[in-house]
């Protein structure tokens, strides 16, 4: 073989370049052996190895990350030798995407915030650990109970994909219509029970010189929530399921059409603050806080978000969206609810048992109470707010949750099929500006749903 030194060097350089190019965004990393499982006992039901490391990555957004630090502190009391590496960050997706690709993820992740990773994709790629073991473990505060029995209804289902619980959300979010109690008391208005009453009250509000409604027009999804809530109330859980399962004609069902008609009426009757369709969420919400508008649709985070601009004595209250008809399938207080702050344990975590144990402490009553106080939001742990004095908004949200009981519903298509949710947003924006009518709205959205159903590149889910 005629191999000169230069030739050898050149081919080595070429090979190095080729591998470094090939070692691209998708190549896997090493398969390090994990910490495995320690001895299982009543004291250590999940078998956490005594002296393994535990890396926790938490989204540090509106809710802060103090509650997760608390959970770590409490875990440390039980397992003093576990070394916890807590990271409170933003842009979870950017930081963790390469680590999921390389299969060297942290042990617990709070996959939340604007830059989060797409959950459906993580699920489809088998990147998440089944949390059943945690759910069947005894609860921290009450070892007689399983963890699954200490959570609010719907929470486990929210994070269940094709029968497997893979994600547990921490903060419970309800969607409704917000108003200022002070303003309503002053005018002698009461929150309407049905949509017809809403439209009548709107006329009265307009006579008082206020705009009845505004919405966060720049992000049309805010107006989807009342629309879809009314559809669910009128059509019942069957309609919600049909929509999520991409059943043909679900978007053109009578209940959905009636809900679209209800929202359209706001625009037709001039009940919406002019210009709302061009307002950002901040602009619309501030107009409402200034008392220029009576109602605004939003999730339960509104009070916290508006904290700095809400005048004293405003007393904001969230009410579930009124019933669409007199004969809705769901009971009166039914409310759209979901949970956020998605905690998960990666399938390839080095210390998966430690990850599960961290979540066991995180979902304990004591840590959850701390969350109520530091984050001003409702955790999904049942009874976490008992005995605490809540602010006006948070109190109304807690009350709505209690009143609804089992009548909480949530649509999954937003997490399952992002392209469909964009199509709904676009259509609702057009509906609220009267550029399309309810029939056209339903037709457009149904077409988008059918397209997703037919698209072989989209992983389908069923509920």
């Amino acid at each position: 073989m005629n191999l000169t030194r230069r030739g050898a060097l050149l081919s080595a350089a070429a090979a190095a370049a080729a591998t470094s190019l090939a070692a691209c965004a998708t190549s896997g990393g090493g398969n390090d052996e994990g910490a495995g499982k320690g001895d299982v006992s009543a004291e250590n039901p999940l078998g956490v190895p005594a002296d393994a490391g535990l890396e926790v990555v938490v989204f540090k957004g509106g809710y802060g990350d103090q509650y997760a630090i608390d959970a770590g502190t409490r875990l440390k009391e039980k397992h003093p030798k576990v070394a916890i590496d807590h990271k409170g960050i933003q842009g979870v997706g950017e930081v963790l995407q390469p680590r999921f690709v390389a299969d060297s993820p942290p042990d617990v992740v709070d996959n939340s915030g604007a830059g989060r990773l797409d959950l459906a994709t993580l699920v489809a790629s088998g990147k998440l650990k089944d949390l059943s073991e945690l759910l069947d473990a005894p609860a921290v505060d009450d070892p007689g109970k399983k963890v699954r029995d200490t959570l609010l209804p719907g929470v486990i289902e929210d994070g269940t994909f094709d029968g497997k619980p893979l994600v547990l959300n921490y903060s419970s979010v309800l969607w409704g219509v917000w108003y200022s109690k002070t303003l309503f008391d002053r005018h002698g208005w009461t929150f309407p029970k049905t949509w017809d009453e809403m439209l009548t009250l709107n006329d009265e509000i307009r006579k008082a010189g206020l705009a009845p409604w505004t919405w966060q027009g720049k992000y049309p999804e805010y107006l989807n929530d009342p629309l879809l809530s009314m559809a669910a109330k009128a059509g019942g859980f069957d309609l919600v399921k049909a929509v999520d399962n991409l059943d043909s004609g679900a978007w053109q069902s009578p209940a959905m059409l009636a809900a679209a008609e209800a929202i359209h009426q706001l625009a037709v009757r001039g009940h919406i603050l002019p210009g709302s369709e061009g307002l950002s969420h901040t602009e619309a919400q501030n107009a409402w806080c200034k008392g220029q508008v009576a109602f605004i649709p939003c999730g339960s985070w509104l009070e916290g978000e508006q904290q700095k601009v809400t005048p004293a004595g405003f007393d904001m209250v969230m009410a579930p969206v009124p019933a669409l008809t007199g004969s809705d399938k769901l009971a009166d207080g039914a409310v759209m609810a979901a949970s956020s702050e998605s905690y998960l344990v990666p399938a390839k975590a080095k210390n998966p048992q430690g990850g599960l144990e961290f979540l066991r402490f995180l979902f304990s009553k004591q840590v959850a109470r701390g969350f109520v106080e530091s984050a001003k939001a409702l955790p999904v742990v049942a009874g976490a707010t008992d005995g605490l004095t809540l602010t006006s908004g948070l109190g109304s949200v807690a009350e709505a949750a209690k009143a609804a009981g089992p009548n909480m519903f949530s649509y999954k298509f937003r997490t399952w099929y992002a392209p469909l949710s964009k199509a709904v947003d676009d259509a609702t924006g057009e509906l609220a500006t009267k550029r399309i009518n309810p029939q056209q709205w339903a037709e457009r959205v149904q077409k988008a749903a059918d397209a997703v159903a037919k698209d072989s590149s989209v992983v389908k889910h069923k509920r």
Partner: protein
Amino acid sequence: MRHGKYRFLVGALIVPLALYGVFVLSPYVQAFQLSLTNWNGVDSAPEFIGLENFSRLWSDPLFLAGLRHNGLMLLVVPLAVIAVALALAAATKGTRVYRVVYFFPQLLSVAIIAVLWQFVYTPNSGLLNGALSALGLDSWRRSWLAEPDLALWCVIVVMIWSSVGFYVVLFSAAMESVPEDITEAAAIDGAGPVTVFRRITLPLIWESVQVGWIYLGIAALDGFALVQIMTVGPGGPDNSTEVMGLGLYRSAFNFAKFGYASAMGVTIFFLTLSIAVLLLRVTRRERVELA
């Protein structure tokens, strides 16, 4: 001696070349490679699917809308910017203050420009509607960015506003290098200012204008940052301001279709390249050597 020189050159260049290779070339190569897969962003072993992503592009209404809107920008933005910049450069010859003022937008980042203009366009407390009311033109008030027929034009105006300043400075500098005696001679021969500009100044600064065409052509195929920050949706209302870059971003980061997004990236790459070559060809003229 000679040997030593090469050793020095190689030693000096190896670090920058390696950095260029890792951070510029390899992402390009990877984008080409990923565009042939169905990568979802977290999968360690994406499937090779050939040219499927590219064939999907041509039936994707969002991508086609983006293509249409970028096409419109390509027709409007370079022409408008060059026309306005030439006019301003000619009109402010010799007055440096104006040029500094025109250059201001260039100093702001795109994100700030987008946020500022969002405040200009906002319906109820915006500068634009406020000014119209002050002039007694209440009927002209609009939800500028929320009307499908207006939104894209609002974005185009911002694009033009934010790039004019740079070209005013570029063209002014070029105009200063045009010898006075030529323009004076033409004036003595009876040429009016318009003729002088068309027959003398413009041909002599053509190379700068050509550079402008190409830069602006490339910029018109982008527009992502302005659309993402300013518009309803973003990309709305009802996709009326969709641009290709936004579609790419959405496919990757909202829809988790990184393979498909890479295919868009590759397509945009070739589009930009062809437009640049085309503009170079079309705007080629005989070069005038100034003595």
